[in-house]
């Protein structure tokens, strides 16, 4: 339990990290460092995107699976680590 906390805190304190969100399979944010509305938006949208990405990867090669998803918009980078039940989302500002 404490390790989970520690891990999340460590992630949050890395350079450039703006926010961390843990979402479950139904799209409910379990743990977040951002405000509620933003969290819900990220959670909903990224969940769909991750599902789509995963199904694409599996369609191309059924043995394959999605391990990590990185989206690089102009402003920040969104990193999604998917799992069967949960989703870990981190928003980072890559240092130039």
């Amino acid at each position: 339990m404490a390790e989970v906390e520690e891990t999340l805190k460590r992630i949050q304190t890395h350079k450039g990290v703006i926010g961390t969100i843990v979402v479950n399979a139904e799209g409910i944010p379990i743990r977040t460092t951002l405000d509620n509305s933003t969290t819900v938006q990220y959670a909903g949208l990224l969940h769909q995107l991750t599902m789509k990405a995963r199904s694409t990867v599996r369609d191309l090669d059924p043995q394959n699976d999605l391990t990590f998803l990185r989206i690089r918009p102009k402003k920040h980078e969104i990193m999604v680590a998917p799992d069967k039940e949960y989703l870990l989302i981190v928003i980072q500002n890559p240092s130039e």
Partner: protein
Amino acid sequence: MEIVHVYTKKRNEFGRQCNFSDRPAELHVDILPDPSLASNFIERDPCDIPIQCTQEMSEHEVNTERFESDTRGINHVEGGWPKDVNPQEMEQTIRFRKKVEKDEHYFSTIMQLGSNMEHCIKQNNAINIYQEYFEEEEVVEESEEQPSAKTINVFRDPNEIKRTATCLSWHPDGSCKLAVAYSSLGFQNISPDMSYDSYIWDIENPNKPEMTLKPVSLLVCLEYNPKDSHILVGGSYNGQIAYWDTRKGSQPVEMSTIEHSHRDPVYKVIWLQSKTGTDTFSASTDGQVLWWDIRKMSEPTERLVLDPNKKGNLDNALGAISLELDYHFVPTKFMVGTEQGLVVSCNRKAKTPAEKIVCTYSGHHGPIYALQRNPFFPKNFLTVADWTARIWSEDIKESSIMWTKYHMAYLSDGCWSPVRPSVFFTVKMDGTLDVWDFLFKQNDPTLSLKVCDEALYSLRVQDNGRFLACGSQLGTATLLEISPGLCTLQRNEKALATAMFERETKREKILEARHREMRLKERSRSEQSKDEDTKEGDGEESVEELATRTEAEFYEIVEAELKKRAKEQEKKVRRD
């Protein structure tokens, strides 16, 4: 052969119920086979009869009702909460969350995902993987492709009686529309059924014009207002100017009055750059250049008569066929191309009408159909007339600095490319479009393309230099796209073009100076030799004097010849 059985029935027996009776069969008609008829037929042996032993099927088509589908996104607000948890209640949500966090599975998942994530975060922090490396070395692609042009769309005159597409104008923003003016320039060639309409075409739709403009008489020229893309001004065959607002419909918003308009067809109309954006000026073969403010079309704001003697005499005036105004260069100087082959350069802001005409350039043998300054080098301009196209420099008035060879067909229109300083386009009466690149080849066009079988009358390049439209005698406007090599600025092009123009200008200057010297020498020599004769004082002779002198010279020559012959005769006689 009809077999008819006739029976009669009494009138009062009609409608009576039928009384059927039975009786044995009676033979009414018996047609026996007649072997003599067999001679009319030929027996066919063998007979081919196809038989198929399959199921008989029939084909039907069915079209289901069109199912309309639409893609929409949904904004996820808040959801996924199980039924017993009310998302609005803070306590319940917190309690739910805490429950989830205690889950064993959650624990292991987070640890694993966390390590993955950390790896990536550290990666990001270490190096920017999307940085632009090798930015300075731009790969210069020198595409060695053949210059080419391809037809994209053809817009045909929808009327039965075809008219010539005499003028084209691109829409000022985005160039997705093309306005085409149709008229018939042949003398008295207008039939009463000819429609007067001109059209605005949308480039994507060649089947039907987007909008029709209905003038009072055929439009010879048409121009979009570069400031306001809804306004067009047109000059018509009967000399009137009209302007349209595309928002207001097909009829002209206002027309100039006949008394104050031109007396001949208006060949060119150009918008001026003014604060109000409503000034235009027009030129016509009656020798006048008129300035108009479209808000008040009842009479022109200014008038200029193209009299080469600068006296404002309309009878002497040169008929104007083309106009040129480059507002980026000097907005008050403009040039007029005339029917007589002269280019007249004028200054609008001159005080007296005499000073308005600054100078003339001669060198062409026929009417100057196109006149345009080079957008990159405003001191040089292109004229298209008779069988050649010539490039002039403003400073040299006696002849052009560069010219093309004499072609087989008359050149009818031309213009510079707006993106490349050394490229220009011309169209000919045999239906070909020529693309000239003077830096590449000067004797022949770089690309010569036969657009259609009939003569091409007008040409207009779009502002991006990529598309051009040409109009033909039967009213078809063809939209062509030229290859990127001809519309992208090459590396040293501007410098090379500058050098070339300067070189040619210098050469012409030297030639002009030489000619002047020679002429002066001639004049001084003739002055010295014929000082006793009062005829050649300044080298100007009237026609009669010239005639008498020639006559006298002729008789002298004849007499000398006669004397020579007489002498020879004498010699012969003496010898014998």
